[in-house]
């Protein structure tokens, strides 16, 4: 992949790495004993996982009445969290697939972890549709399998059913894509390992031996999967948005939802990637591979998608006014100024106002700013889903049924518990798999490594060193 690179491009790998150094740097975290930080993190994560298991068991035993949902508001934390986690699960595939197709080389530094995050986030998301039903033991009714339950079949008109297909397809393709990328890296680990670990990685690497034919198949498979995954990035959240867009409830029944949801998903996904990457690169000392330039690129995506989302919010308000339909107008007026005004305020502040700071290059390249902004964005995006789901339901057509909702201990426990699932998986992942795609980094080393780019940069050398310094 020695493509001619514009001299104005900044290097993507710092530290004058040789191929061996790359292997050493990236493989070492999984070859050492776990650090104290990791152990503490893992204990916390597993504790939260236990909270999840307990709360879900209780909810299944008691019934959905363990949650504070009511006759008016049938979905609350459950579906809010579902949409939120699905949204987070968007960045990985976007980075791997769409950026691969667009030949964005900076993706190589972050794609592995982002994809892993996608998979874990989708697992967290998928928990909610499963546990939110009243009779979980009948969940197989959702599946289009031949049955003896009479002539009844699933209802293909229902967006919830589309969700089942959309999520499962997305999960499958993401998993394949992620694992495909891992195969050559597992082989690298295998070659360095002895004993049990060697056996483990031997199995995981599917007998990869680095033959040219393997590489050729690997490249074509990656490309095919990228082609498959690209429409999925757009379709999953489009279909999730159909849960709302195809209904009749004012505030849900909105044609703008598909693009708005997709933009929001990428927005929150990138924010989550930022949160994780900033911690990971520091903890695993991968600053040379996940550089300030990566962070800045992702901040640019956050700024773009944040503004798309902002425009979507404003269009909704405009259309509500323009429609002259009392229920629509009321729904939006109520969103902004009604009983849940604080959630709308949180959404607007976190999603639209706060990302505007990224117009400044200095802030885009600041680790602390980025970290706090990424948290902000995820809070904002959580509130966005809460606003859409809960405020619309709480004040719909008939004022007699208007109601109020706040979560029960069980709902909060389950939400916190999903972090337990997520981080348990993530921490195991960073222990056993290379967090940065070794093979892919190596493929761009010759074109984007600083030692190869340095003398070509001419006047920019000084600047490159400066940004290198920032990394440390």
């Amino acid at each position, binding site marked *: 992949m020695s493509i001619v690179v514009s001299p104005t491009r900044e290097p993507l790998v710092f530290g004058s790495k040789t191929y061996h150094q790359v292997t050493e740097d990236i493989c070492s975290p999984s070859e050492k004993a776990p650090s104290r930080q990791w152990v503490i993190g893992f204990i916390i994560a597993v504790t939260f996982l236990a909270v999840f298991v307990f709360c879900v068991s209780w909810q299944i*035993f*008691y*019934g*959905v*009445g363990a949650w*504070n*949902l*009511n*006759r*008016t*508001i*049938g*979905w609350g934390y459950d579906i809010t969290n579902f949409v939120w986690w699905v949204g987070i699960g968007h960045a990985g595939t976007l980075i791997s697939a769409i950026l691969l197709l667009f030949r964005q080389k900076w993706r190589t530094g972050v794609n592995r972890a982002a994809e892993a995050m996608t998979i874990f986030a989708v697992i967290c998301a998928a928990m909610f*549709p499963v546990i*939110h*039903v*009243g*009779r979980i*033991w*009948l*969940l197989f*009714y*959702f599946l289009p399998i031949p049955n003896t*339950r009479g002539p*009844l*079949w*699933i*209802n293909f008109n*229902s*967006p*919830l*059913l589309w969700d*089942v297909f959309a999520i499962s397809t997305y999960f499958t393709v993401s998993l394949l894509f992620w694992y495909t990328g891992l195969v050559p890296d597992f082989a690298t680990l295998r070659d360095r390992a002895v004993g049990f670990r060697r056996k483990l990685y031997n199995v995981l690497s599917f007998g990869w031996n680095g033959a040219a034919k393997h590489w050729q198949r690997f490249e074509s498979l990656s490309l095919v999967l990228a082609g498959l995954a690209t429409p999925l990035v757009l379709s999953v959240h489009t279909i999730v948005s159909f*849960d709302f867009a*195809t*209904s*009749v*409830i004012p505030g849900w029944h909105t044609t703008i939802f598909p693009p708005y949801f997709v933009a929001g998903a990428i927005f929150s996904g990138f924010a989550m990637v930022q949160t994780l990457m900033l911690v990971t690169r520091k903890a695993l000392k991968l600053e040379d591979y996940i550089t300030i330039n990566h962070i800045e690129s992702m901040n640019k995506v956050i700024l773009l998608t944040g503004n798309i989302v902002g425009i979507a919010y404003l269009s909704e308000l405009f259309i509500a006014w323009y429609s002259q339909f*009392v*229920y629509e*107008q*009321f729904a939006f*007026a*109520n969103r*902004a*100024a*009604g*009983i849940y*005004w*604080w959630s709308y305020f949180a959404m607007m502040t976190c999603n639209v106002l706060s990302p505007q700071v990224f117009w400044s290059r200095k802030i885009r390249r600041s680790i602390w700013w980025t970290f706090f902004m990424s948290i902000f964005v995820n809070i904002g995006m959580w509130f966005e889903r809460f606003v859409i789901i809960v405020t619309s*339901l709480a*004040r*719909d*057509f*008939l*004022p*007699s*049924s*208007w*109601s109020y909702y706040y979560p029960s201990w069980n709902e909060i426990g389950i939400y916190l518990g999903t972090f337990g699932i997520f981080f348990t998986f993530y921490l195991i992942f960073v222990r056993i798999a290379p967090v940065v795609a070794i093979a892919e980094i190596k493929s761009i080393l010759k074109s984007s490594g600083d030692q190869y780019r340095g003398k070509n940069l001419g006047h920019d050398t000084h600047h490159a060193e400066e940004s290198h310094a920032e990394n440390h």
Partner: protein
Amino acid sequence: MSELNQGYWGSSEEFTNDEAFVNSLHNEFYELPILNKLSEEESEKSNGHKRRDFLKYLGFSIGAATIAASCETPIRKALPYVSKPDAIVPGVANYYASSFVKGNDVLPIVVKTREGRPIKIEGNTLSAFSGGGTSARAQASVLDLYDVGRYKSPGKNDGKGGLKKTKWEDLDKEIKTKLSAGGNIRIVSNTITSPSMNAVIQQFITAYPTAQHVTYDPYSSSAILQANEKSFGKRVFPGYDFSKAQIVVNFGADFLGTWVSPVEYTNSWSKTRKIKNFEKPELSRLIQYESNMSYTGSNADNRMLIRPSEQGLAIVKLYNAVAALTGAASLPVSGTLKNAKSEKSFQSVAKDLLANKNAGKASIVLSDSNNIAEQIIINKINDLLGNYGQTIDLNNYSNQRKGIDSDMVKLINEMKSGSVNTLIILGEANPVYDLPDGNEFAAGLKKVGLSVSLSTVPNETSAACTYVAPSNHYLESWGDIQPRKNSYYVVQPTISPLFKTRQAEQSLLAWANSPVDDFSTFIQNIWKNTLFSQQSEYSDFQSFWNNSLHNGLIELPSQSGSASVAVDIASYAAAVTKPGNGLEVKYYEPMGVGFGAYANNPWLQEMPDPVTRTVWTTVVHIPLKWDGDSEFEYYKNLKKDGLYVDFKLGKNTVKDIPIVRQFGQMSDTIAIPVGYGRTVGNPSALNVGNYVINTLVRDADGNVRYWNDNADITPNGDEDKHFASVQLHHTMGVRGKDKSNKVINVDEKAIMNLGNGYQGSLTNRSILKSADVSNFTEKLEELKEFRAEAAHLNSQNLYPGYDYLYKEGHHWGMSIDLNACTGCGACQVACISENNVPIVGKKEVHRQHEMTWLRIDRYYYGDVESPNVFYQPMMCQHCDNAPCENVCPVNATNHSAEGLNQMAYNRCVGTRYCANNCPFKVRRFNWADYTTADLFIRNESNPMPDGESLFYEENLTRLVLNPDVTVRSRGVIEKCSLCVQRIQEGKLRAKTEMRELKESDIKPACATACPAGAIKFGDQNMPEGTLKKEWNDPTTYFVLEELNVRGKIGYKMRVTNKNSELI
């Protein structure tokens, strides 16, 4: 001959005991079926097990192991009949005409029984008295039969709250010994409408001449009886005929809800509220003078605010205004009413009344006042207006109120002085609880040698008596009622007594050593001697009696005569109540629990109060006021419903009553319902609400006064953590004058401040359509335009839909006349009873988990100070383009070919998407295991207040379940089915009778329960059908019609008939 041989033989083989023959004797069939033979041959050939056999064994053993290991199902015994009773066909309901009797509440009904158990109460359509309607209380009474808290045998109170069981014979012996020992005997009861019961009491008094019968009523009408005695020489409660009254001026009587005979009154009043002429609608007018938003007041056209203590003044002022116009002498009066509008109103009301009289029409002026002078003046006003003989009938009087409060005062004094030796308390009478001086009664009771309670359920009084001789529930009893002088109804048992109880009449007969000791014979004798001779249709008594039992009634023709007040009223002007001071409190009887007697019934406890929409609680209604800008001001700055206040009156303090902020509550007044705070009863009565009856007072005549002045409420900073109200938003376009004196929409202006919810856009909602007679034509035109616009929008559709399917066969629908509907809730309880709707308890209602399929939405509109009220029964609209149906991922809810939106409970997984997407929010989710029909046995905390068992957990309670309707388990959605079981039953009946289906074959539970005839069910495809006719009515509209959900519940616009001078 062998030993086997008996001495006779059938064949030579048998004779010789051939071995093959002896073996064949063990086979039942001489030759095995041919298939066995064939299979034997085959298996011989294959010799050994085949692959298929292996699979069979495998399948069987796994299946058997699974079943043996996992499926331990609880065993519920169902015993079949040994010999089938004649009248019972399993699966087919039997109906018996009877009457609902509880205390002084009576109503002719028809009881539905299935497999010998009563499960549902219907109205008796033959009755002119009720018009076939029922009340929520009558509907709920069937649950009382299966009340686990009932007395199960006679006994003697052990003084520690327990009952020492005895046998009836022993009890009778002990009581008779004590009775014959002499001394004063007193029988206490609420008003008895039963002629036979009265005869029984007479017989008892004959047997024990020292006995006296004392009657009192919890919500007393003593003053009316006494006033009528003074005015006309007859101590009777008049019969009112609202159907002939063009104007009703009402001072506080809740005649549509709780006062005396609400079903009768609602039935006749609603006849005058249905619009027949759409060019020029004719409606009666109801003008209500009151301080609180009472249920009847909420149905009034004009509501005028007066303080409770100003009622006397207001009545005198109305009299003077009427007298001025008729030339009668006026009364001296001083003082003005606090409310300027009310002060000015009397000229207009009098003018209205007189114009009505001069047009040859009648009216009614009415008050629930318990002040004799006020009632006499009311009588005089009615006299001046010529209402006696037209709308007020003293000949065919009502038997439903006979109690005189002062008799009770006398009795208490006698008891306290120790001169009463024996006290017998009949029926529901619970004086320890429901008298203002109940504690004095209790103190007196201790001095009575022998006290016997004949209550069916434990109550405060029965717990304080020495003996309990429990009576039957009315569904287990014989009896009769005579609510009006010329109307007689039978009470017949529909089930044998469930427990060792004996009906009160029988007990009295036994104690009186009556020659006729069987009460059913006793009644027949009474009817033979009194009624049989008054009719000419039947010549022999048996057929007369059989027919009366079949129809449940005899209604004799009556002639009402006019009457005039024969007393000089001048002396009474001074005796009316004087305006009081400070905060005034009005006590009212709540629709559900009544004066406490119905508190045992969870169906009624969970029936939302029509006005406050609260359940399972006492509330203090506090006034609110719009500040003319963007805020409401609440009394004592109590900004949230459910905050606790301490209610103080004189030396009595009632702690921790939650408040509701009440529109239409006059400033400086509050209202409190009585009937809560029971201390003895079953779990649903205990610890519910607060006891306030001890704060009532009696006036100089001994009559209980249902208001007080100089009251005080103080917020104590606490709140009811489980305050249960089913509706949290109340107004829909109330209007008022802002600071620049311009009339504006208060909803749009008020509460615009952040966080309280933007309330604008409320007026244009296509949910409520209302008009006044004055703007009727305009509003009708507006409605027509709206519907045309909606039809246009709905035609802009890409999809053809399925309308062509529904044009064939049946296409069910419903019509609800919002003008006839008063919001009483009978339909709601009927629905609960018919469809096994679970009761969830206060905490769950607080969490908005109520399960009712049918609810009655209540909205305020009009004048912000004294708004009009809109009641809207809301249930599944059975949309032909239903939003719930297409979103269900598993097809659990779908549309029938007859246009019903149906639920397949077995199929439902419980995503709740349908409930979210329902614009009417009528779908109900089983959040927990409310009916103990769940997979996990009893995993929920008990939703009932302080109960030992979940509602419906007891097998006894489960007897009330309708076997035609599935009991839903947790995790599934449920909702109104338009009583699909009744539709099916009607269709089958028509089919077995080989005829076409008539609309009258099918009536949903809500439609049969309605006392106003507001709900009509029918088939759209029936060309001359009722539904077609109702829907073609220009006032019909559909809620949210512009959404193209195509609902099938047509609503008829609510129209008021305001006196414009009073606005």
